[in-house]
């Protein structure tokens, strides 16, 4: 079942422009010039119930604008959006009972008061029955392990503790979809993994649909089924995470320690570093198989030590942003 649909969605903002200089400033005073900035440009997407979807893109790509249209805060210039069967900007309040949101850089908790007070406030804001509220809080407190944090003022919590509380608060009313905007921003590796595990767990147990924006490729790799990459308001790529890895992880990095100095000269093998008997290669497995490369090396010398690694996901995403991503046929797709 599709819980989120966007069809030919556009959002333009009118922005004032002015050339530099005092004269231009005066000119602009009497004759202001405006341009239309295309924040979102003909976006089409669909999200299935229970899916964890990543929405990635560099700063200013249009991610937050899209989320704001999906939550009914912004009106699209044109196009159609349907979230849980509702048109967000027409039924914003009705929709807000069914969705949750966490914005990594913003807090919905009261800074000087303990999280318990925010839980209590949200229970009334979402009109949750007292009995259901108590049961739900207990469930969330156990799952997020925040029992000992409930009575400490929010300002005294670490970022990791705060984010755990933020996510728990946003789940209080049992939303069907949760929008997570950079939920792991600024967190250390251990807390990041903890948050990811919690999101995964919730997705499984509550069939919660997760719409996540992040700059952190780890979030996408470890959490998501599907990824959409957006830049300049346009969707650059839509793929499952496994397909993305398969298609873009054609290159392997090999670090070798050889018995004697040797440089293999094969098509699809690029020498990254070479010093004495140590050598680092970038192997394109489409042009040269691992077997052919290793056969070539062992014919000439023995391998003392070897380490193989894949192109980091971060680099793949960066290549897509910068326009060097290629499709299966080796053609540029951007």
């Amino acid at each position: 079942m599709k819980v989120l649909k966007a069809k030919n969605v556009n959002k333009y903002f009118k922005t004032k422009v002015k050339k530099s200089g005092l004269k231009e400033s005066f000119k602009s005073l009497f004759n202001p010039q405006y341009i239309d900035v295309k924040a979102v440009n003909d976006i089409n997407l669909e999200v299935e119930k229970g899916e964890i979807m990543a929405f990635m893109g560099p700063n200013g790509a249009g991610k937050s604008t899209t989320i704001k249209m999906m939550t009914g805060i912004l009106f699209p210039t044109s196009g159609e959006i349907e979230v849980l069967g509702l048109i967000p900007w027409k039924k914003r309040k009705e929709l807000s009972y069914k969705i949750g949101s966490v914005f990594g850089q913003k807090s919905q908790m009261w800074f000087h008061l303990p999280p318990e007070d925010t839980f209590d406030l949200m229970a009334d804001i979402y009109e949750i029955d007292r009995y259901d509220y108590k049961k739900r809080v207990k469930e969330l407190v156990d799952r997020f392990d925040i029992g000992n944090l409930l009575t400490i003022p929010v300002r005294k919590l670490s970022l990791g503790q705060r984010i755990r509380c933020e996510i728990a608060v946003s789940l209080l009313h049992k939303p069907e979809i949760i929008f997570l905007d950079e939920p792991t921003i600024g967190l250390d590796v251990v807390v990041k993994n903890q948050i990811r595990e919690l999101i995964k767990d919730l997705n499984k147990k509550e069939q919660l649909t997760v719409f996540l924006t992040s700059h952190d490729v780890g979030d996408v790799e470890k959490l998501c089924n599907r990824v959409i990459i957006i830049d300049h308001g346009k969707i650059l790529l839509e793929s499952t995470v496994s397909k993305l890895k398969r298609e873009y992880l054609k290159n392997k990095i090999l670090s070798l320690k050889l018995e004697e100095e040797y440089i293999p000269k094969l098509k699809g093998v690029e020498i990254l570093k070479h010093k004495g008997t140590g050598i680092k290669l970038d192997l394109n497995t489409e042009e040269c198989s691992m077997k052919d490369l290793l056969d070539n090396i062992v014919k000439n010398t023995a391998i003392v030590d070897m380490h193989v690694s894949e192109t980091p996901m971060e680099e793949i995403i960066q290549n897509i942003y910068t326009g060097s991503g290629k499709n299966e046929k080796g053609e540029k797709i951007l």
Partner: protein
Amino acid sequence: MKKVKKYFKIFKINFSNELMYVINYVSTFLFFGVVLIVFSQLWRAIYSENPVIEGFTYEKMIWYFMYAETVMLSRFPFVREIADEIKSGDIAYRLNKPYSYILYYYSKFISSSILKLFLNTLVGITILTIAFKGYPMPLIGLILGFTSAIIGLSIHFVFHFFIALSAMWFEDNTAFLFVYSKILLTIGGLFIPIEMFPETVKIIANALPFKHIIYTPATIYINGAENFLKLFSAQIFTLLILSVVVAFAFEKSKKRFNVNGG
């Protein structure tokens, strides 16, 4: 009922929040004390030749000024907060909750303002009772004035919300804030009751809604039940009309949200 309860909860939680830092009000109390002493001396000089001016005795005038200043100092500032939210786009994060944005801020505003009003009234009465031993404190006026002050502050909220909304059109709305606060100081009746204004200014001041913010509560405070119903119903009527206008303006301006980024 649940719809009302959520705003009452915002009121309560904000009240708790304010109580955490009630010590911060000390500077306001000191300022209030100094202002009361300075103005009581000023009015003493003015009243040295005339015991009654436009129906106001010196004592009545001092109590009027005390309460007008109490209301003035009890306003919880929020314009900058909303204007910043509009300019930065953070307003988006408030709008995705099932409550009215205006009532959310109103609940916060009125809870902080009531706390301030209560404390400032206490401080003002204490100072004046010590300074004018034996002068009977208007007790009925205290209850009715407090009620009227809440409505006055609510009208002030509506005006400030308008000014905050102007951030949708103007990058800098401090000029509006400046003009508005000067209106309150002058024709709003803070320093001088409207009765003492020259005839033309009196007509203008009486025709404008600003008098209901400070002048009406301070007048009810000193006069008690006298004319209470007339003044109070005029206040309520003003609040209703302005609330409808601000709600309409807010709905219309929503389309102007220009929240870039991300």
